[in-house]
């Protein structure tokens, strides 16, 4: 219902209809999520982490505050105002964190926070082991992650298709064996067996190899990760 309204108009509407306050805020936050992330990231010069990011919660609270405090009569656009608010709140937060840094570290190791910290670290070290193995295997196929990034299909559906094909290949023991013996993708066989065109396979060859490695080498953390979005897309 808000699609056609500008941010300023939505806030105006929200003020006059207090009943819909929550819906309006939710819509605004949802709509400007990338903006919020980007603003935070610019202030901290770090990427905003998806899980357990304190910066993100500070930024969201700041954005919410901006909605409350925005005053159209001052003439500034809402987003530039929101940017100001988020920037200053994040800066405050960073300063506070810097001051408390030594203290909080001690607290964490001393008290029950220990387990929470190590859990996240645990994931990172596990995943980096998987990534290392993955990369080593890719090298045997004659390319690395940089080339992969350059040459993997850009379009969502092409990728989906390639992932689907990779699944089928991983399920075929003979093809997988062939792959790991020769370190080559048996394109002709795949084309014949799965009735695709060589064009599809050729275009996404490296991508398919990379995906098949993830699937067949039991790199479960990576696999779960690349499937998240696919699942999300198919559900919606």
């Amino acid at each position, binding site marked *: 219902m808000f699609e056609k309204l500008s941010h300023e108009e939505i806030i105006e509407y929200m003020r006059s209809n207090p009943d819909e306050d929550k819906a309006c805020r939710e819509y605004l936050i949802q709509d400007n999520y*990338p903006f919020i*992330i*980007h603003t935070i*990231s*610019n202030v901290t*010069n*770090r*990427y*905003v*982490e*998806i899980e357990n990011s304190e910066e993100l919660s500070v930024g969201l609270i700041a954005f919410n505050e901006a909605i409350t405090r925005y005053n159209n009569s001052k003439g500034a656009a809402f987003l530039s105002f929101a940017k100001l608010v988020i920037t200053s709140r994040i800066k405050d937060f960073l300063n506070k964190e810097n001051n408390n840094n030594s203290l909080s570290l001690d607290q964490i190791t001393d008290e029950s926070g220990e387990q929470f910290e190590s859990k996240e670290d645990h*994931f*990172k*070290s596990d*995943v*980096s082991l998987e*990534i290392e193995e993955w*990369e080593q295997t890719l090298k045997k196929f004659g390319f690395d*992650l*940089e080339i992969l*990034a*350059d040459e*993997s299909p*850009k*379009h*969502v*559906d*092409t*990728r*989906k*298709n390639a*992932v*689907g094909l990779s699944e089928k290949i991983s399920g075929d023991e003979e093809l997988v064996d062939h792959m790991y013996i020769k370190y*080559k*993708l048996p*394109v*002709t*066989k795949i*084309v*014949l*067996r799965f*009735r*695709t*065109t*060589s*064009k*599809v396979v*050729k*275009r996404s*060859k490296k991508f398919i190899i990379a*995906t098949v490695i993830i699937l067949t080498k039991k790199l479960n953390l*990576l696999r779960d*990760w*690349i*499937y*998240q*979005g*696919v699942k*999300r*897309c198919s559900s919606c």
Partner: protein
Amino acid sequence: MLKNGMVVKLTDEYAIVVTDESEYLKIKLKSDMSIGQKIYIHSEDLFQSRGIVTSLDDGKSMSDKRSRNHLVRRMSAIAAMVVIAVLIANPILRPFESPYAVVSLDVNPSFEISINKNFKVIDIEALNDDGKSVIQSNLKGQTLRSAVKNLVNNIEEQGFTNPTSNAILVSTVDFDNKAEDKINKEVAIGISQSVKDHSDTQSTTVVFVDADSEELEAAEDLNMSVGKYKLYKFASSTLKPEDVESSKISELIVDPDVIDDIVSDEDVHVIDDNDLEKLGDLIESYQENHSTEEDDALFEDETNELDENDSIESDLELDEEFEEDVTEDDVWDEIFDEEPDENLYYELLDEFLESEDMDLEEFLENEDIDLEELELEDIELDELLEEIEVFDEEFIESYLKERYIDSLFEEKLNEQGIDLDEFYNEILLNEDLDIDQYLEENGVDVEELYKSLEEQLEEEGVIEDDFFEDNNYDEEIFDIDSDLDELLEEHGIDIDEFYNEILSNEDIDIEQYLEDYGVDIDEYLDLEEDLEDEDFEDEDLEDENLEDEDFEDEDIEEEDLEDEDLEEEDLEEEDLEEEDLEDEDLEDEDFEDEDLDEDLEEEDLEDEDLEEEDLEDEDFEDEDLEEDPEDDDFEEEDPEE
């Protein structure tokens, strides 16, 4: 706009993330990044490849420099001319003129042709004995196109070609000059013209393989052409260098290992005889169309050679002038960008087998190829049927015998006065036949029969189960049977009749038989496909559309790049012109300066010039340096905006 990514690699310039939609992206570096970190990625975080940025900068600064430093350019041009003059004057240095590109051509004679920037042949070398007999000395100095044409003509005239199928392997090493496409085009046109002249050699396939200078060196170490070296690498598990060296290309490219790579490798392009013919026709008609208007000028040139030398440039000009017509490049692009057709290789294989008078099985045996590896059995009905044909009369009879009865049983039945032929027929015609009942109906005491059978088996120390195991017939064979049965049922063919037909007629063409009964074999294949891919068809369609889009994007990018290239070329050409003018001046001066003193003086002057140049070059570099930081600043400012 926002993507979820996991950092998988950190480099000095950028980080690589994989998104939760399995997309691989390069992103800008920010502080505190670690591998395995899950982060939000904004579209502005994407890393822009430096290559594009610098090329844009180059374009800008190039024009700036041009206007600012005309004098420097002049001086460096003069310096270059001095160097070139020395090179030309010195006969010892001449052979080291480095080629612009090296083209290897294999039929099996093999050649290596070196060309210069104007696509003129500067050196041609035979890489084997066959090649030596073909080479003519006058090929040097010709354009690549006419040299290839003459070379292929010679090859054909000396009988190195097959009447049925031919393949020419062309490999281009262009030392990063980005002219592979143009070179390939010239070669293809040359070949197509030659093939047109020799109607007796049919179906020539041209395989283009792009190679780099490292591969050229490696190939030279092995004493073979680059093209063959690439083929050898494709099939290194099955072929030895000597084999590759001595085989004809038309044989090599049907090697299964090689086929796989020809189909899959980005460096390889194939154009078949139809395309070649099309190219030849179009080029010819194109030349006819334009020769009347444009060639008037060319006719004034006295020698043929000159005519040919100019032809490339004039063609290029023609292309620009007659944009609405189909140009050589259009024809070429159309053909060259076409995806290789896999069927082509099977066709080639067939042709090869025919010419060698071998059948497929023999060939496979000779080549030590596992039928399974070729995957013939589950590809097509043809193969399925072939498989079944192997298990013809003999097989079915023995199968039935083993399945229901052994010879002992047969004896017993005989004793009971049952006509064995009739009995088998009955079994064949009626799969659900209850044998016991049938026997009873014919006055056999079944219980007694089995009892005596068991007794006899025990006497011989064989247990019934063991018997079947001993005979160890392959269950897979029955699977194929049931496959076929299904097919037949689908099309309402009487299975019993079908088997009967097979049994009674050894030479029956099963496929023909099926078609007679109204089975559309193609339809069956489609059906099978549908069953396998039920869900995937829609996706495939979508995918194709999407790919087309991708393709278009790529085209556009390529065009852009080409434009840039063209601009650069233009610039270079201008430079050359300037140099030419100045060169003439210099030469004039040389002629006038007969006194040694003056020569010396001039040398001094030149030295001074050179010094000046050095200084100015340094200035120049400084300016470059000054510019660079600005650029960097600019980049850094971007995200903040």
